[in-house]
């Protein structure tokens, strides 16, 4: 078995798959991270990914260019983010309950709209998804080239997005305000910045990114929209935020690690081992990995102090 694992690990296609599998997770994890850094848990993530997958796909199906589809997905996600933000920030409702409600609503909305738009179909129609774009020169590097630089544009965008999030968070006044909203909102308000505004804004942008992560599934990974295609990826991203200790860089590492497990289990299924061990066991691995990651990291992580704490003006 060791032999087979090593063979998998040194193949370029494996690493290319890792990056591909990690891409939607990176978008959505960055989205959740932004929300939580501002102090808002967003359990709407799973449903927002579904609506992103659907809206992006539908837009392209109706004739928009692919990047237009990504933009529509972002907008749809931001809209559900606005709903979540308005309910939990000014009204201070339970972030758990509203988040689950948003997931149910977004998922049902996507399914309802899909059935409404395409009532008759049994096999889902396809679009032409993002194609692999080989980076000139870099993609010619042996092993590394085909692994890292022969991806679809959305994968490059995912990594760029993580870099941008890190820059904004640590290098700009906006990021400072965002972190303050999650650490001590009263400190932010006392400096004349609206906590409500920062938090709702963060939830909207974060939800937009989650939806873009969802749209990766329909616009880059597959070419159609299926029910249950998000399949718990949102919840895994919540685990990845904890695993990454609320830091973008570590969260990306977590996403890559997770994707590595996922890519490995797919390939192990095709080895002789796959004939003996039931395939469900392989499919469980990523979920089990997520739980283990939570167990390992939970103790050490520095949770944003005001996460899940509603803020009321003038109350200290």
């Amino acid at each position, binding site marked *: 078995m060791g032999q087979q694992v090593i063979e998998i690990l040194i193949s370029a296609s494996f690493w290319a798959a890792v990056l591909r599998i990690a891409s939607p997770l990176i978008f959505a994890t960055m989205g959740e991270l932004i929300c939580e850094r501002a102090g808002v848990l967003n359990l709407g993530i799973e449903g927002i990914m579904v609506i992103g997958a659907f809206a992006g796909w539908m837009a392209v199906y109706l004739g928009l260019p692919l990047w237009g589809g990504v933009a529509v997905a972002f907008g749809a996600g931001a809209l559900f983010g606005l709903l979540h933000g308005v309910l939990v920030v000014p009204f201070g409702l339970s972030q758990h309950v509203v988040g689950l409600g948003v997931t149910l609503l977004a998922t049902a909305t996507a399914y309802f709209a899909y059935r409404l738009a395409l009532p008759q179909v049994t096999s889902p129609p396809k679009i032409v998804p993002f194609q692999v774009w080989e980076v000139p020169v870099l993609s010619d590097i042996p092993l590394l080239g085909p692994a890292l630089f022969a991806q679809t544009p959305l994968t490059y965008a995912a990594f760029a997005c993580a870099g941008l999030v890190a820059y904004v968070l640590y*290098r*700009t*006044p*906006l990021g*400072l*305000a965002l*972190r*303050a909203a999650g*650490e*001590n909102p*009263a*400190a*932010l*308000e*006392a*400096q*004349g*910045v609206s906590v409500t505004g920062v938090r709702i804004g963060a939830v909207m942008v974060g939800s937009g990114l989650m939806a873009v992560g969802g749209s990766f599934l329909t616009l880059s990974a597959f070419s159609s929209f299926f029910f249950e295609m998000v399949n718990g990826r949102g919840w895994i991203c919540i685990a990845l935020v904890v695993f990454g200790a609320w830091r973008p860089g570590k969260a990306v590492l977590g996403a890559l690690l997770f994707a590595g497990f996922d890519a490995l289990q797919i390939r192990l299924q095709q080895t002789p081992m796959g004939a003996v061990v039931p395939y469900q066991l392989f499919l469980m691995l990523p979920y089990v990995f997520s739980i283990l990651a939570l167990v390992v990291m939970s103790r050490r992580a*520095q949770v*944003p*102090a005001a996460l899940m704490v509603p803020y009321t*003006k*003038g109350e*200290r």
Partner: protein
Amino acid sequence: MSFAQSGAEVVLRLDQITKRFGRLVANDAISLTLHKGEVLALLGENGAGKTTLMNILFGHYLADEGSVTVFGQPLPAGQPKAALAAGIGMVHQHFTLADQLTVLENITLGTKSLWSLGRGRAAALAKVQALSRDFGLAVAPMARIADLSVGERQRVEILKALYRDARILILDEPTAVLTPQEAEALFQTLRLATARGLSVIFISHKLHEVMGHSDTCVVLRHGRVVGQVATRDTDRRALAALMVGAEMTEATVAPGVPGPVRLSLTGVRAGALRDLTLELRAGTITGLAGVSGNGQAALADLIGGALGPEAGEMRVDGAPVAQWTPRAAIAAGVGRIPEDRHKTGTVADFTLAENAVLETYAQRFARLGFIDWAAVRAHTVALIAGYDVRCPGPEARIRLLSGGNMQKLILGRVMEETPGILIANQPVRGLDVGAIAYVHSRLVAARDAGAAVLLISEDLDEVMGLADVIHVISEGRLSPAFPRGALSQAELGLWMAGQGFAHAA
């Protein structure tokens, strides 16, 4: 010569400010004037309306009537941003700092447009360093707030205001969390500020500070201005009379009759506490003085059962304790009045009845796991009557009660068990004068009935007035026991600052 007659420029004018909360009039047509270079003390009991007034000025509340003028310009109401832009800086009683961010980050927060691409860190750093030099506010700009002492945090708060070029500084009870020596340094800074043409309002109920460090005093009572005088033209007695509404009588409590040792700690280490030795005697109030955050919480937790001793010996009525939990402590006769009655003392959404039996439901009011609610109700009705709890009834949610009435219920809940040991942690914080007197009289009554009382307070006057024996706590260490009246306020202050302790462990 007072500022009013000096012809100095008027920088801030409040005119007829009125604020009502429901039927309560928190501020009743308050007017006051602040001049350039002036230090104005706003004096009043708890609940006199000082904090409300400052919250209006700072835009956290909207006044129902009245207007504010800053440097001749009307200040738009209800906008913290407008107050900041007009040059008003506020240092709140509870600091508004983000613990995980650095000093510099806290200071620069919100000072640049949120949409600018960089933070301009170098320039900000230079400005902060210059300010801390000019105003004597030593603090490391790159340190995380979580690693700073309370005094340092206050300096960050002042730097925050100065960084925004505040011309008017408002400080809410600035010395409540400081040792007397730290407070002295703060007033030095304020003097440097007024020398540079800034103006200062500080809120206080400590007469000696007001007499020592202000130019003008404004006294509030029940939301009204009851006096405005130049400090040099008045004295402590006159101010006290204005504050309380009558000549203040120094409350005198007869000393207790010490009985046997009820609780003893020998060389105990637990949480923040280091090598602690303490005896609580029956018939004695032991006062624990100290600046907040020096181990008071750990000591209260230790005796109350929330924290077990890690080393050393703890005896209750002579017997060493094992398996020390809150329930064991209650069973051993320890009564606990917690520091935070909203967060630890009561369950806000529970009824008075449910809160009244929070500690005793299982032992006194249940059979075979079923609670006898009729008995609970009868018990609560008796508590309400016996401890003068003003409330709609035993089935009302406790969140509807005022702080004083909530505290009376907790007091009743504890006293009804006739505790042999009573820990009262900040028992009168945030209460009005009447409730304070009531709580104090009950503590003394418990002492006279033979309880060993531990009174934890940050208010040195309260400790000196009530306690038969005083300990000072500093950085988790305990001073020797000082009999009542053995040390002056200043001497206790030195102990609070950590002087006199044999050695740092």
